[in-house]
């Protein structure tokens, strides 16, 4: 294995030796915690399988073991997990889109239109971002109905339901603020109609509308305002609430029991 017919090491074995040396190095062990499948000498034992979760960042999301009914696809339909995954997908595609976007009038429209011609995969990424956003609203809503019908909001999980309602609201706000950014007729008038409703707030209606739009009607300052909300303020808020949401899922006891 280590030598060819001439008694010299083959290139393959030398490369393999470097890999083995690296995997045994202090640096490698500082990166991968004990029990990681990437560590030297990992074997597929029940103990190591537990370590994979327990010594892993996943420990914050998943317990080592769950009830068998909890992994049935028909129980959760993965809706919560998919909502989280769609958020990550939207973050990645959103960062890509930010490279080519200027939140100004009429640059926003020109940049969005240029995605389909001047940017490699620009149109595809924009499509992914838009359809993914609509899908996320749907999965978050369906996740909520699933949790209701399983009675999974009952003690001790009451507060996590409240956090979930906040997350639903933030998801809608994220989608709504993103709706304006292409700055086409659809965006402008959909947001005009949507934010008119905020103007009906009793007593403070005009003030609420002014703060939201940065003026008396949807214009350049609204675009900038919605852009900052969409790419910075609301994601910041939703990440905090998601952290609390996932932490409470673990602390309150994972998936709910069978019906």
């Amino acid at each position, binding site marked *: 294995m280590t030598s060819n017919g001439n008694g010299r090491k083959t290139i393959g074995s030398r490369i393999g030796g470097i890999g083995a040396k690296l995997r045994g190095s202090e640096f490698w062990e500082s990166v991968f915690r004990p029990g990681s499948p990437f560590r030297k000498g990992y074997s597929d034992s029940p103990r190591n399988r537990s370590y994979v979760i327990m010594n892993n960042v996943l420990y914050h999301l998943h317990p*080592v073991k*769950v009830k068998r009914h909890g992994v049935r696809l028909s129980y959760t339909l993965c809706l919560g997990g998919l909502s989280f995954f769609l958020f990550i997908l939207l973050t990645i595609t959103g960062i890509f889109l930010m490279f080519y976007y200027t939140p100004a009038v009429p640059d926003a429209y020109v940049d969005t239109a240029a995605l389909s011609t001047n940017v490699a995969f620009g149109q*595809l990424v924009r499509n992914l971002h838009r359809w993914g956003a609509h*899908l996320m*609203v749907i999965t978050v809503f369906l996740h909520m109905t699933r949790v209701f019908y399983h009675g999974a*909001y009952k003690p001790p999980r009451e507060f996590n339901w409240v956090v979930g309602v906040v997350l639903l609201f933030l998801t809608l706000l994220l*989608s709504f603020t993103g709706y304006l950014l*292409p700055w*086409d007729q659809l965006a402008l008038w959909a947001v005009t109609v949507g934010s008119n*409703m905020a103007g009906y707030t009793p007593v403070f209606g005009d003030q609420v509308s002014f703060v939201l739009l940065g003026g008396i009607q949807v214009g350049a300052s609204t675009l900038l305002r919605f852009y900052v909300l969409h790419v910075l303020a609301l994601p910041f808020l939703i990440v905090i609430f998601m952290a609390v949401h996932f932490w409470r899922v673990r602390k309150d006891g994972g998936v709910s029991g069978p019906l």
Partner: protein
Amino acid sequence: MAEIPEHLLRRSAQAKAKALGVPFEQVLAEMSGGTLAAAPAAAPAAGAAAAQAPAAAPARSAPAIPEGVRTQRLLTVVKANAIQQVKREPTDKVSVWPHLVAMEFVALLVVTALLTVFSVFQDAPLLELANPNAQPNPSKAPWYFLGLQELLSYFDPQVAGVLIPGLGLAGLAAIPYVDRNRSIRPSDRKFAIMVFTFFVVASAILTTIGSFYRGPGFNFTFPWRDGIFFDL
């Protein structure tokens, strides 16, 4: 079991002699002879039962304890389930890795694949440049607000635009605190399921009407007769 050190034996014999009112030497002889074999839980002042244990065995001289050596004696062993109730029913569990994580990963791949295929064949809409002076007819909110926009054609704006969504959101958040029923069995919570389903179906119907059955001027139309006035 280890031998009881001499000084401890003397001390406990003194205490027992004082308690029982019998001579100290007699108690010491009994203890060093017979009670050594008795249950370790027996406290020195346990009473007559220990004192009257058979004293047949000859007295043994305890080995001398070196100066400064501390010795210990096991007094009693209390089993856990004698003082606390351990309720742990066996449950059927599986490891999250690989069973759950693999399933989540497959779900992630499936959604990514479906979304990518859909995005390849269906472009996101982009109409002409925004023009504040040309309002399209009809003007519709994003689809998830179309249920509310539909309500606007029935109620006062303050009711449909602020009161209903505000109360709806607050009521949604308050569900766990209003619903005091602890059971999660569907047959035990028919009322809760009925009310929740009513609101879900109502909002779905309103959103559908607002999306597909409203045309120019937000007037009622049939999508198969006048076409669909709806953009995502």
